[in-house]
């Protein structure tokens, strides 16, 4: 594994230059928010930011994506694959929690039997540059409670860690190493850099303030599908779906047809288990008739079903749903309450 040092002041310029040669997505300030988006050619990303409002999963699993196109004229029907070309890309400045989400989404979209070609092609052609959190950016961060860490390498092709004057750049995968020439002539990291990185990582992990017992609740969920506790979460829920749209691991989608004249596209759009129509059948029957069942599904999916199916909790502790729920429903409290059942 190549380990190099990048001068802190030089990093935005290096990525800005990379964006003239490659498709680069990164964190930028847009009005009041930091958002992850495509950098314009030469545009420099933020390097000192908390985290982006939108989860970068959207670059592998876009909010709206054409699956195919069709043309109907009279009785004739012509089908065509969606013509969007998927090219090589770089995601710069992904936080370790969000990089962790890519690994969790791989489990679902890249299963042995049904591989999702749209997701997989983007994923294979994209290099992930993770920016370790030298200090957890929010009080709502709880990555360490869900098998993550502020300087975790999981899901990263390159990991950058702030060592004060420099970033330590660890080129973790072949994909990561292929980007090395784009960074110019970087000095090799001295032997002590790894120790300093480990110290930064340990310090950052110790600063995490939230520690909901997420790994303890699976056996409790196994036994308590029916429990009066489920009546206590959803009372104030507005069914807005904000939690699921911001979530880096939520993967539910709808498929619908959009037609204009003779032409149309079959499109998949993000969907949400918080919406009443999500499971409503044409007969009118809805197996999850109220917000209680929908909340139970959301919690069970992340902390039980995903563990049953893939051996991993489907939450990365980014805290977005906690910060941005308009009625302050807090998944950390839900986890803690379940642990007490």
């Amino acid at each position, binding site marked *: 594994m190549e380990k190099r040092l990048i001068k802190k002041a030089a990093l935005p310029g290096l990525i800005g230059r990379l964006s003239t040669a490659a498709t680069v997505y990164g964190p930028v300030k847009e009005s009041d928010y930091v958002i992850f988006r495509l950098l314009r050619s030469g545009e420099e990303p933020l390097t000192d930011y908390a985290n982006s409002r939108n989860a970068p999963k959207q670059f592998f699993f876009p909010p709206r994506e054409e699956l195919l196109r069709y043309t109907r004229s009279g009785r*004739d029907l012509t089908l065509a*694959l969606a013509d969007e070309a998927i090219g090589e890309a770089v995601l710069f400045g992904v936080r370790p929690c969000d990089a962790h989400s890519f690994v969790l989404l791989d489990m679902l979209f890249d299963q042995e*039997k049904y*591989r999702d070609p749209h997701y997989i092609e983007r994923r294979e052609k994209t290099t992930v540059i993770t920016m370790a959190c030298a200090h957890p950016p929010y009080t709502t961060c709880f990555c360490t409670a869900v098998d993550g860490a502020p300087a975790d390498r999981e899901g990263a092709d390159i990991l950058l860690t702030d060592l004060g004057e420099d970033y330590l750049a660890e080129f973790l995968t072949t994909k990561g190493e292929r980007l090395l020439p784009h960074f110019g002539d970087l000095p090799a990291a001295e032997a002590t850099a790894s120790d300093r990185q480990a110290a930064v990582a340990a310090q950052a992990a110790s600063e995490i303030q939230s520690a909901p017992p997420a790994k303890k609740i699976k056996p409790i969920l196994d036994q308590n599908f029916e429990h009066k506790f489920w009546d206590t979460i959803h009372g104030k829920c507005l069914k807005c779906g904000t939690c699921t749209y911001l979530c880096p691991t939520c993967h539910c989608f709808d498929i*619908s047809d959009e037609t204009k004249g003779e032409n*149309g596209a079959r499109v*998949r759009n993000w969907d949400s288990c918080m919406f009443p129509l999500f499971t409503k059948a044409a007969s009118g029957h809805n197996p999850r008739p109220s917000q209680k069942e929908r909340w139970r*599904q959301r919690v069970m999916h992340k902390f*039980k079903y995903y563990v049953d199916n893939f051996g991993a909790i489907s939450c990365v502790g980014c805290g977005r749903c906690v910060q941005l729920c308009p009625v302050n429903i807090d998944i950390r409290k839900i986890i803690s309450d379940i642990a007490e059942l």
Partner: protein
Amino acid sequence: MFNPYVPIPVTVDKIITEVETKDIKTFRLTFQNKEDENRFQYLPGQFAELSLFGQGESPIGIASSPTQPGYLEFTVQKAGVVTSALHDLEVGAQMGVRGPLGNHWPIDYLEGKQIVIVGGGFAFTTLRSLINYMLDEKNRARFGRIMVVYGARMPGLLLYKDELAAWAKRDDIDLHITVDKGDADWQGKVGFVPMVCREASPCAENSVAVICGPPIMVRLTLPLFYELGFAEENIFTSLEMRMKCGIGKCGRCNIGSKYICKDGPVFSLKEVHSLSPEF
């Protein structure tokens, strides 16, 4: 890479209005390309997404049997946007099919056993596929006695009437057709499915029951089968949930940690009870 979201082009070859109320039709679809037909290898109990471009997709059980090559049949009730548009199609129309999807009736497990098939109303479609599969001359010897109990609310709501008449003439299938309420022309049995099952009282020894129907029928029939001595692992049914992708990704058809589209739709009662009380 195989793209599971792209439908196979098919042509509507035949449309049969099955019931007096005209809201259930059987669509016979033929493949536009021979290679698609060869690739579409299925077994009774599987389903497919019927794809109408401009309306969307609807998951429907395959009503034909793989022993009847050259076409697929789907019996569809007019209910929502897609199925209503399907009902408006005419012979010759082009549409799409995605599949085969899901698991199938446990053919290997059924082999060498006595088979009891219990169907109600419009849920008879994949049971019909299974019956035709077992009755095929190449397959019949693989299975023991076949008993079929099939009921509908009224005579006019029975599906596949010509086929039922043909089965009735055979001596290798024990057929019990019943209706909840007869009419002036009805000569057959009148009575609810659970009651007719009790009259027929199939022996549980080396037997497997395959039960599919409206929830009320299933709920009232199961206790009888337990009483007759059928174990939970020897009773099979097929579950339904709203679906989109059909391949376990879009996240809506799960019951507990199982996706009905990918891990089902066929489950033994033992499996159903382990899924979650949500069902």
